[in-house]
């Protein structure tokens, strides 16, 4: 019961009555009284699929079943998966629009304000006023692009809550295949539809070749 092999091909979560499963450390201790206190909170189930097609079809069923806290993990972005998961368009483009607008504003102030008010440089027969604005266009363009690019990077990190170096999913040896040729669906225990018994069965019914319970680190 306690020392369940998390490397097993098809694993059903241990039904020990409590909503906690024993993890690697507990199983190494060989059971006993301390096991409960060292036990790991479950994070959720991961299900492995054997192809992009299989995980795509399964994702549609997950979406239709009404799961909320779940995700698909794949080595590359699968075309059409956003629709299959019922996700909308990323809001990143809006963030980048405002990032770019900010860059443009910076350029107007930097080039225009310094040249017109702060330190007019009267060279090249160009007037030191706003009529010379075409000469500032390259700076405006470059800073718009630069700040947009910064916003792309920070936006992706913020929206994805990265970097996050540790994650319960990394506790699964099987899961590391996601970056090679593995396709996974993960369902968190915090999902309102999650059930310790029904969810793994559901995952198998939608085509999973293996289902595994993943636990948090010791905490």
């Amino acid at each position, binding site marked *: 019961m306690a020392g369940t092999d998390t490397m097993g091909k098809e694993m059903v979560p241990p039904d020990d009555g409590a909503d906690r499963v024993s993890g690697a450390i507990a199983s190494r201790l060989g059971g006993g009284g301390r096991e409960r206190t060292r036990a790991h909170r479950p994070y959720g189930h991961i299900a492995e699929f054997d192809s992009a097609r299989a995980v795509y079809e399964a994702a549609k069923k997950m979406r239709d079943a009404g799961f909320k806290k779940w995700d698909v993990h794949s080595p590359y*972005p*699968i075309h059409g998966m956003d629709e299959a998961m019922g996700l909308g368009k990323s809001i990143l483009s809006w963030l980048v629009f405002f990032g770019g607008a900010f860059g443009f504003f910076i350029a107007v102030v930097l080039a225009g304000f310094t040249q017109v008010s702060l*330190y007019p*440089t009267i060279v090249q027969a160009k007037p030191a006023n706003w009529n010379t604005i075409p000469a500032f266009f*390259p700076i405006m363009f470059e800073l718009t*692009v630069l700040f947009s690019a910064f916003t792309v990077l920070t936006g992706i*990190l913020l*929206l994805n809550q990265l970097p996050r170096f540790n994650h319960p999913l990394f506790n699964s040896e099987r899961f590391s295949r996601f970056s090679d040729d593995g396709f996974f669906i993960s369902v968190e225990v915090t999902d309102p539809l999650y059930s310790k018994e029904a969810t793994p069965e559901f995952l198998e019914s939608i085509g999973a070749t293996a289902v595994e319970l993943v636990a948090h680190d010791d905490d």
Partner: protein
Amino acid sequence: MANGTTTADATVEASGIHSDPPGVQGVPREPLVLNGRSMHWVTERICGIIENRQPLLWWVLFLPSAALAGLLAFMLVYLVSTGIGIWGNNQPVAWGWAITNFVFWIGIGHAGTLISAILFLLRQRWRTSINRAAEAMTLFAVMCAGIFPVFHVGRFWMAWFLAPIPNANAIWQNFKSPLLWDVFAVSTYFTVSVIFWYLGLVPDLATIRDRCKPGIKKILYGIFALGWRGANRHWRHYEMGYLLLAALSTPLVLSVHSVVSFDFATSVVPGWHTTIFPPYFVAGAIFGGFAMVLTLMIPARRIYGLQDLITAKHIDNMAKVIVLTGSIVGYAYLMELFVAWYGGNKFESGAFAMRVLNGPYTSYYWTMMFCNVVAPQAFWFRWCRHNLWVVMAVCMCVNAGMWYERFVIIVTTLARDFLPGQWGYYSPTWVEKATFLGTFGLFLMLFLLFMRFLPVIAIAEVKGVLPEADPHYEGDKKKKDQNK
């Protein structure tokens, strides 16, 4: 799953994902990855470059490159400690080799972002095999380029005067100057290219992280992989970000060499003061950049056995880009001559007459003409595009020719302008030659280190263009096992 019960014939039929609609006979599209390689094979082959011992040839190339990079450092120290006079540039040719080399390297740095951005927007899926290396090459070329203007200013410790902050005398930069636009354009280009390159690397770094045994390597790759776990909720923002960066980089890549050309075109020097410069420079930059990509990738694919990923089709496509841009460049050369004659400005026509016919540097002009206009015409022929020796020979011509082009534009023009009393002759000193040679060492050394430590091909992107990556693929599931 669906084809579990179908017959063998039906499986074969269904495996073509680019199947034509019924009743239409088309030429089948060439696969982007040959021999039906699996995703696992792609991972193994590309990560294998990093995980296995480097071939002897890597060391044979790396050690001289590192030595040349050391020579570069030595030459720069010698320059700074002695004074700018050890370079040959002086009035009237104040720009000399330094700016020639700057424009040369920055031009090479255009192919990477062109491949990653413009070809991405144009949905040229063949770019996935070459974009990573081309982007890396871009960064290293821009680094080499940046060295020259910084040291060319003479007192390089004052180079911070270029930054958009008031200098020590509270004087602000002249934002109306093309030279300052250049500072913004090149530094923005470098920064955005780094972001683009790094963002593309994140999923591949995760692949390497997951393959490493626990240890310092895993920690380092893990830090740069940012804890990537391939989640589709992440891919959603990631793909949008990648698209946005491509859309932003597309005008950016066109702007950089346009702004570089403004350094020349906005002056009133005969031979420089032309409106054709921005498109002519951009076409030339793409031309030279693709030649350098091929120069690096043809040996690399051979050394590391990447022929199934960088196929003859890729080389063929790049050769076609070279003949297209080379012809645009040739057109620009001829149009310059036509306008010099037709424009009726005697300084302009005089400048070109001395450039082409009777000046001190006519051999440079005709070398440029041969290397950039005549040599690439070989690529009209399929045989030439598929013979790697011919491709390499033409690319070497183009690499040299693009340097000659910048020399012709800068030096021949400055050496002979309005008054014969101002005329001069410029030739580089050994220090300049050694410095330029040193930048090749730096460039190659950085590229070899990149191949040693980072995935040279975008693993995740290549997996995405495999037939079975399509969620509607109904092909043979057994393919996986065949490749093991």
